[in-house]
């Protein structure tokens, strides 16, 4: 293990990407994630990589399409309005099975909205913000050490399955500093990428990267192949943290920085002998449904706390499947719920349930 450094979340992402072997970064400035681009502009050239400031997010995602198709480990990053612009390219890349990492440091919307933390892009990320039947892996780290490790992992997952991986954080995660301990050596999944367009060298049949399949039979077969891949990812790549869930009366669920607030609430509740648990999805897709199924056996209720008007709560309801009541508490506009606010909500629910 290397020594601990104090770093900004955005810079951790950039540093981790370089350590993971990312050689090409394409992006367009947008608050609150521009530090990623600043770091890449400075550091990538020093390790022989390439930083390109695109003229727009639309251009950036298509540069990613080209670079990934050409066999590079590559990344783009943006924040909500910019991610909306990338949706066309994301759908094309998913169809063409191009591996790459996309970072969304979410800000509050809709529209131009504001730049403060939010989680209103959950649906867009996990349900497919672009057109067609596709999925991408969505990782939601809660602290900077995890942000580092998951960023490296994101590149591995991307290459392993030829899929897009999104790292989703919010402005607080991007802007905060916390100690991070980098490893001396990263575990890097190596793949020949025999499918990439690197020039035939007159030695093999030519490769093509495409997302157009005019023949319905052919396109359906391609869709079936994609779905099979997604099923495999769903089976292998679920990540979740369960905290104090055994014997909990009420299970709170939250992801990213919100889960950290909930952990404080759990401490508060403990003092009053109220047993609160936390399910923290680390992969938003694939969603860790089984954790909820298990807890629905004994917990009295679930409460989803989000910086949104209610998005992940729908997946929680699907997982709990009517076995127990599922409540929601959300803030929007860049407002963050306080510990007290969440605790009051918990007490209100328990009272209602006669606990």
């Amino acid at each position, binding site marked *: 293990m290397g020594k601990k450094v104090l770093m900004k979340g955005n810079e951790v992402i950039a540093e981790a990407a370089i350590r993971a072997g990312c050689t090409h970064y394409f992006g367009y400035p947008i608050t609150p994630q521009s530090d990623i681009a600043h770091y890449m502009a400075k550091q990538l050239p020093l390790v022989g990589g390439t930083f390109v400031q695109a003229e727009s997010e639309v251009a950036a995602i298509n540069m990613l399409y080209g670079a990934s198709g050409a066999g590079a480990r590559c990344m783009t990053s943006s924040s909500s309005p910019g991610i909306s612009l990338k949706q066309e390219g994301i759908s094309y890349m998913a169809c063409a099975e191009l591996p790459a990492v996309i970072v969304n440091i979410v800000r509050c919307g809709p529209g131009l909205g504001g730049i403060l933390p939010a989680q209103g892009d959950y649906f867009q990320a996990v349900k497919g913000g672009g057109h067609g039947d596709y999925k991408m892996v969505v990782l939601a780290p809660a602290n900077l050490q995890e942000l580092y490790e998951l960023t490296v992992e994101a590149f591995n997952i991307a290459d392993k399955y030829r899929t897009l991986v999104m790292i989703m954080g919010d402005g607080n995660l991007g*802007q905060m500093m916390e100690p991070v301990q980098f490893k001396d050596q990263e575990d890097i999944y190596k793949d020949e990428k025999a499918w990439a367009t690197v020039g035939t060298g007159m030695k093999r049949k030519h490769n093509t990267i495409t997302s157009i399949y005019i023949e319905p039979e052919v396109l359906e077969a391609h869709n079936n192949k994609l779905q099979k891949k997604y099923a495999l990812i769903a089976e292998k790549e679920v990540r979740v943290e369960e905290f104090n869930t055994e014997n909990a009366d009420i299970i709170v669920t939250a992801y990213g920085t919100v889960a950290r607030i909930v952990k404080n609430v759990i401490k508060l509740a403990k003092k009053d002998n109220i047993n609160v648990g936390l399910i923290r999805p680390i992969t938003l897709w694939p969603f860790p449904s089984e954790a909820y199924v298990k807890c629905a056996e004994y917990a009295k209720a679930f409460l989803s706390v989000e910086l949104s008007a209610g998005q992940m709560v729908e997946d929680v309801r699907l997982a709990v499947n009517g076995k127990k009541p599922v409540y929601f508490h959300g803030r929007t506009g860049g407002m963050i719920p306080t510990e007290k606010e969440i605790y009051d909500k918990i007490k209100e629910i328990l009272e209602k349930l006669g606990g």
Partner: protein
Amino acid sequence: MEQKIIIAGFGGQGILSAGRFLAYAGMLEDKNVSWLPSYGPEMRGGTANCCIIISDEQVGSPIVNDPTALIAMNTPSLDKFEKIVRPGGVIIVDSSLVGRQVNREDVVTYAIPATELASEAGNATFANIFLLGKLIAHTNIIKPESFELSLKHGLREKYHHLIPEEMKVLRRGMEY
């Protein structure tokens, strides 16, 4: 032990860097730390603040709603954060710049004309360090030696000659 600190004032007063040096010093002492800046649109020429948590335990949320300590370097900052300081906590204000007294009676208060004292000591921009000195003395949250190491790490080489002066100001703050 856990200290949840808010440092607040105008942009340009070294608010964010003071917090960073403090957090880094905490890390050097193997404590758990976090630093979270305000990054809202208020940054353009307006106020700046940051939350620092230094703790023996894992840091929960980096957002501080109930600080144990507040350093306020202008009146709007005192207005904004005075109410939320925990009873028994500490409020340190730069009385050169804050135009009123602290109204709370259930906290320890230090009103220090830090900007004046720092400029007497040679550099008005070290007012933030002066106030940090008082915070360190009152809370014992970190050792001054760690702060010195933190400055060495965080400042660019060409500013290293200022470190002895900054440490002098820090110590004067501690003794004030």
